[in-house]
Each structure stands twice: as structure tokens, then as C-alpha cells.
């Protein structure tokens, strides 16, 4: 049974969007999982959705990282389970040290809410296998703390291990300073862990699943996950 689990923290606000994307658009089973749960048995992929968990108090994601469900999420990830963090979910994953680095205040200081072009950097992951390398996507961003930061050694490792899956780009795919909305190092929009089963990204693929929303570029991300899971199950 291929079931998605979407974690609801106090202050999550993209949980229903993720549910809609998976269950109503792609027609795959999904459950909402309250953050006080402690068990993830039966799930094939766990999603930490966007939002403002605990009001972003202290640091973004810092308090959600200690929600009861997070021990199960860490164990699930360590066993190779797919964990996807979108926006605030990405921030929670870095706080939980399932992904390296941190997300800090946008360099421009503003909350940014806009359509954004990003470039697919690597297709060797459960999340990007249906994309083409260098494909340009249009996926919305909406965040105040999306500036990816890590020290130079970490960035070098991300590059060497090809863990950067998406970068902010201009409409021609150019990775330029002007195309970088939030000051992220190396225009990083999304990274996976070394084992490639944990992925965090600031853009919102669940917000571009249907033509009426102006882009369906988010679909391939969820369809990649489904394809990967099918292959794993068939093995």
C-alpha cells in the first residue's frame, strides 16, 4: 500500500494543499498525521508541509523539530523512508539535522510571495527522476526565511555529492545573482541528504498541480515519488 503521511504541526498551513495535490489531483491515498502521534508505520512517504509552525518563534522550525512525531520522522528517514520538507518543512528538516545548513532571513528582508523559475540540477533522486536535467520550472515561493546558509565545507560537499536538486534561475535558466530571490548561497532552492531519501525545498510544488493555477510543474515532483515507490515495491 503506497500511502503518504502529511504531518500537521500547530501553525502548518499547507497541509491541506498537500493532501489535495496527492489525494484529489493524483488520486493516491494520504493521511493527515497530528504532530503528537509517535508512529509512522504503514507510510511510504512523509511530508512536512509549509506554514509557520509555532508562530516561527525562537527560530523557524526550531520548536516543531521537537514535536513528538519528529523522533519517528528521524527514525523513518534513517531507515531510508522518503521524507519531503516543503518551505517550513525544509526549515524543520534542517533544524532536525536531517539536512545540512540552515534557512535564515531573506537578504532583502521582505516576505516574498511570487512565481519563481527554478532549474533542475540533478535527476538522480526519488524526487526528481521524472524531470530532465536543466529543465526550467515555474513554481511559487512564499517565505520570509528562505536564504539557505551553510559553511563553505558543507556547500562543497553538497556540490561534490550532487545534493543540490534545484537552484533559483532566470527565465533562460541562468543561475545569476539577479535571479536569486532571497540571497541563498549558490542560488540553492532545494537539497537532499547524501542518501537522497530526505529532500527539502523552499518552493511549493503542491501549489502548481493544475492548469487553473497557472503551472503544473509541481506534478512531476510528486509523480517522481510515486514512480520511485512503485519501482521499490516491484523489486
Amino acid at each position, binding site marked *: 500500500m503506497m500511502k503518504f503521511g502529511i504531518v500537521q504541526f500547530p501553525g502548518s498551513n499547507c497541509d491541506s494543499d498537500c493532501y489535495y495535490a496527492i489525494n484529489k489531483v493524483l488520486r493516491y491515498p494520504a493521511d493527515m498525521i497530528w504532530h503528537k502521534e509517535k508512529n509512522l508505520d504503514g507510510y511510504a512517504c512523509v511530508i512536512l508541509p509549509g506554514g509557520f509552525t509555532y508562530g516561527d518563534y525562537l*527560530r523557524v522550525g526550531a520548536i516543531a523539530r521537537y514535536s513528538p512525531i519528529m523522533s519517528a520522522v528521524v527514525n523513518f528517514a534513517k531507515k531510508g523512508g522518503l521524507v519531503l520538507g516543503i518551505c517550513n518543512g525544509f526549515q524543520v528538516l534542517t533544524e532536525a539535522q536531517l539536512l545540512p545548513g540552515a534557512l535564515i532571513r531573506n537578504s532583502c528582508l521582505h516576505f516574498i510571495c511570487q512565481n519563481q523559475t527554478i532549474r533542475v540540477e540533478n535527476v538522480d533522486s526519488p524526487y526528481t527522476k521524472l524531470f530532465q536535467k536543466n529543465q526550467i520550472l515555474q513554481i511559487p515561493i512564499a517565505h520570509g526565511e528562505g536564504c539557505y546558509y551553510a559553511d563553505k565545507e558543507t556547500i562543497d560537499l553538497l556540490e561534490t555529492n550532487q545534493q543540490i536538486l534545484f537552484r533559483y534561475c532566470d527565465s533562460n535558466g541562468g543561475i545569476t545573482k539577479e535571479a536569486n530571490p532571497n540571497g541563498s548561497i549558490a542560488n540553492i532552492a532545494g537539497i537532499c541528504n547524501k542518501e537522497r531519501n530526505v529532500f527539502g525545498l523552499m518552493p511549493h510544488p503542491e501549489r502548481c498541480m493544475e492548469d487553473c493555477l497557472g503551472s503544473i510543474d509541481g506534478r512531476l515532483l510528486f509523480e517522481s515519488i510515486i514512480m520511485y515507490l512503485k519501482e521499490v515495491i516491484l523489486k
Partner: protein
Amino acid sequence: MWLVRINVELKKGVLDAQGKATHQALLSLGFCHVKEVRVGKMIELKIEGRSQEDIELQVKDMCKKLLANPVIEDFKYTIEAG
């Protein structure tokens, strides 16, 4: 009872966007000799414990686990009998 004041600040080299914006605002108010502004946060705790050493161990632990993020922040603290 002990009074603990913890200062959390961004590491040198991490872009302090709030500090930069605040600096600009101070300059535009005419405080033209301000050369740098860095914005951090102060966390105050009241905590019970037997000894200062015991409190210090706990404070270090809470800073590492929750109050500061070692990837981007440094912390320092003072402890006084309250």
C-alpha cells in the same frame, strides 16, 4: 533561584539582514558615526538549582539543543543568584 541571561547572535560571516537594515535606518536618522549594527536576541531564564556549575551545565545543554542553532549562531550567558 538563579537568573540566567543568554545572548544569541549570528556567527560572523552569516548575513545579518536585520542588522544591515537597522544600520541603514540609524544612518538615515542622522547617527552617521554608526559603523556596524548586529541584531541578536536575549533570552532570560529563572531556574532553580543547587550550584552555579549545575546551572551552567543545563544552560549549555539547552543552548545546544534548542536556544541556539550552532550552524548559524553563537551564544554566551551570564548566571547570577536571583
